[in-house]
């Protein structure tokens, strides 16, 4: 997996609630950059027919990272979340082909959506919450589109039913991104 030319730094999931806006934006930025790196790897596994879809998703994540960096100000790192990259790398290496790559992308999108949905429930800054919401809606849409692309039916489109999960365990959790 191609991560970053620069040394990676972990960004801790803040343990105290509510979370301040710059801290939440910085964490979101680092996660988005980790997803960009993951998509770099996934694009090597897919054919021309679906490549544009994954390229669009990757471009969106890059855009999201830039937006969050702006909101994070001095707290922005400019780096992908190191622990997340480390966690994803062996999984990406083990993927066998296009179907597995698309399923993995779907999993990434579901998890990042849950991560942002949770962040909205703890961030004390309305502006950052709205930016997370604006991004969350698009990433939830990515996940749904990938489910369609994978040929899933209506019974599989919404594993969590009528509500986006806000449980941090459904997202990229503190276990994946340990403090420190």
């Amino acid at each position, binding site marked *: 997996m191609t991560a970053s030319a620069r040394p990676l730094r972990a960004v801790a999931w803040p343990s105290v609630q*509510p979370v301040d806006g710059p801290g939440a934006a910085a964490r979101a930025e680092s996660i988005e950059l980790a997803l960009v790196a993951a998509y770099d790897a996934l694009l090597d596994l897919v054919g021309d027919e679906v490549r544009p879809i994954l390229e*669009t998703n990757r*471009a*969106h994540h890059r*855009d*999201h990272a830039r*937006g969050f960096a702006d909101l994070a100000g001095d707290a922005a790192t400019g780096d992908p979340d190191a622990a997340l990259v480390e966690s994803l790398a062996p999984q990406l290496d083990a993927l066998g082909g296009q179907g597995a790559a698309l399923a993995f992308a779907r999993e990434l999108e579901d998890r990042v*959506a849950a991560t942002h*949905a949770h962040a*909205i*429930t*703890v*961030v*004390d800054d*309305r*502006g950052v*919450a*709205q930016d*997370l*919401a*604006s*991004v*969350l*809606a*698009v990433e*939830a*849409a*990515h*996940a*749904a*589109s990938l*489910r*369609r*692309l994978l040929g899933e*039916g*209506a019974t599989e*489109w*919404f594993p969590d*039913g*009528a*509500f*986006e*999960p*806000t449980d941090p365990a459904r997202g990229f959790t503190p276990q994946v991104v340990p403090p420190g």
Partner: protein
Amino acid sequence: MNGLSRRLRDAERAQRGSVPAWQDRLHRMVDRRRVGSDELTCVLGLPSRRDVLRIGGLGIAGSALLAACGGDDGGDARTDPSTKNAPAATDELDPGPETDRVLLNTALSLEVLAVDAYRRMGELGLVESASIRDAFAVFAAHHAEHRDVLAGVVQAAGVEPFLVPNPAVRVAFVDPALLGATVQGDLVRLAHDLERAAAQTYVHATGVLSTVEQRGQAMAIGAVEARHAAILDSLGELATEKPARYPTEYPLPQESRLEG
């Protein structure tokens, strides 16, 4: 909550009873095959097509509504320069309990509208695809869950839940779209636009609502509605634009906002 549950049931029954009569009246009034969209707009007393719904500054009247009215004069509002930079039909709201009540009750009325719209879409008998039929059924069930949760939130905020389909959006958008629908694709487009507008409403609300709990609830719903829109885009091969972010402005006409 027992009283609220009863009111939810009563509201649903009342809507079921009233719609066929409304459709009959309207069909008696106009022969939709001969009446142009402008005349239809006039008969219905609707706002200008361009004023109907704005998503990200673009009129979505150009999609479902124009298709619904039939006789599209070739002016696609999505590319119409006169609508491209239209300001959002909204004033900035000052955050606070009163605004919370306005946004929550408005969102509730949009959920009631969506439940009602999917039921009416099913009754038209235009849906041929099993996938689309399944999607409509799942989405309608989700909106019913959203409605029930929001009704509780609104009641907890100390106001009467508004359990009627949002009047402004129904009259300006849903009714004419349903009246003019002739093929399955018209309904998919209508559903997509409604879902996208609803999702954007929650994105907007997240920047205004007072508490983290309310903001979390709003986007737990809004994200699922964004998923609905994406699935409809795929099922209907709508090939809509896919920007990196949902717009944050309120997408609906000012009149669609309810009193707190």
